[in-house]
């Protein structure tokens, strides 16, 4: 049976090709897979579509990948005031942005995970976000149709993994990570500690092992923004 625990960050991202669509967990500085992002920056994969709440914080989080011009398109809710590398690339038209309300971003990711082909929401009706989207009245409300967001890879940050791939998260570093973990073809988890299979109580597992394909121990870069 294939082992999920990888010896190095670089091995864990080695097969991510140019042009891949990648989800990246994290919010407000917490729960970013900063070591995996650094590995992907070292690898130099190009023309990436990134799905992330923000667009980096200075050189940290996704910042390094915008700095390196590895990202061609990003789907995000809040690029952030310190996303200077993104903002420069955006101004230079080297990267395009789809701006999405935060809850809808997450719900579209979950829809992909859950095998749903779309959903209706009142969020965004009458705003720029509704541009080009089907609108109709359902349950007495004006709604727009939102579509799933899929990914080839998810880079996520968890606190503890068992060797089988069950994950738990620390405090509010949970945020987008469990949802993105469910939505990608290949989910790669950077974790603080790896414990023997069965060491996490079955009722306390947040991300069941079925969603996790690779596990690698974090190497030092916890808060990078």
């Amino acid at each position, binding site marked *: 049976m294939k082992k999920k625990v990888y010896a190095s960050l670089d091995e864990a991202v080695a097969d991510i090709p140019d042009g891949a669509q990648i989800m990246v967990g994290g919010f*407000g500085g917490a729960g970013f897979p900063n070591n995996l992002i650094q590995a992907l920056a070292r690898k130099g994969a190009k023309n990436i579509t990134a799905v992330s709440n923000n667009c980096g914080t200075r050189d940290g989080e996704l910042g390094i990948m915008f700095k390196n011009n590895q990202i061609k398109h990003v789907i995000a809710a809040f*690029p952030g005031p310190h996303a200077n590398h993104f903002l420069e690339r955006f*101004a230079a038209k080297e990267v395009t942005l789809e701006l999405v309300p935060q*809850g809808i971003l997450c719900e579209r990711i979950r829809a992909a995970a859950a095998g749903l082909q779309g959903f209706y929401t009142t969020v965004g009706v009458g705003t720029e976000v509704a541009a080009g989207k089907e609108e109709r009245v359902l349950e007495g409300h*004006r709604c727009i149709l939102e579509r799933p967001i899929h990914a080839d890879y998810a880079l996520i940050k968890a606190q503890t993994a068992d060797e089988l791939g069950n994950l738990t998260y620390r405090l*509010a570093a949970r*945020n987008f990570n469990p949802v993105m973990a469910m939505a990608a073809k290949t989910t790669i988890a950077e974790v603080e500690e790896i414990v023997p299979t069965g060491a996490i109580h079955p009722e306390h597992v947040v991300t069941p092992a079925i969603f996790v394909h690779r596990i690698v121990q974090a190497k030092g870069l916890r808060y990078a923004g």
Partner: protein
Amino acid sequence: MRAEGIAKPRLTREQIAQRAALELPDGAYVNLGWGIPNLIAGHLPKGITVYFHSENGILGMGPRAKPGEEDFDQVDAMKVPVTLIPGASFFHQADAHLMTRGGHLDVAVLGGFQVSEKGDLANWKIPGAKGPGGIGGAMDIAAGAKILIVCMEHSTKDGAPKIVKRCTYPLTALECVDTIVTDLAVIDVKPEGLLLREVAPCWSAEEVQALTGAPLIVRRQIPEMSFA
């Protein structure tokens, strides 16, 4: 509509927050947005317990963490390390916004650039600003809260009214605002229009109307804003 002619004292941002805090019922689940709303947590009346929701996945936030006691895995939606009150919980982002969009929050308080007489809110992007702007959780929160309060200054820095007939800034959500608390007044958005509920000390209904870009409904004598 310009404000130059009037130089009376207006409420401070802290005072706006203090007044808005009185709108939160005991036991309520509440989300506070960026800016003035975020100051409300410091002004809760004694004996009132409110459960603060953070859209990154916390229910039951307490005050910000003291210097030296910060944990950067326990931050609010503004990236500020916070404490927890007993009974707090963590959950993922999809559940965090299930709470906002699904109508589970009793009250949300957001900042605003403009509010229309129908309660439309614009609060995420200034026209002509550099860069693409950022929506964050505001659209989900505005669409779903049982009661939505907007806290903002009554006028822009240039003196233009922020309460308007129609928003000219990019919208956050349509017909979502229930109450507006500004440095001049408390105004309820009703089906029949904007109902002036209270005015700031030393201000009259007529003076507030003069700085407001949409007609205010004035019934009887308007009481002065209370702060406790």
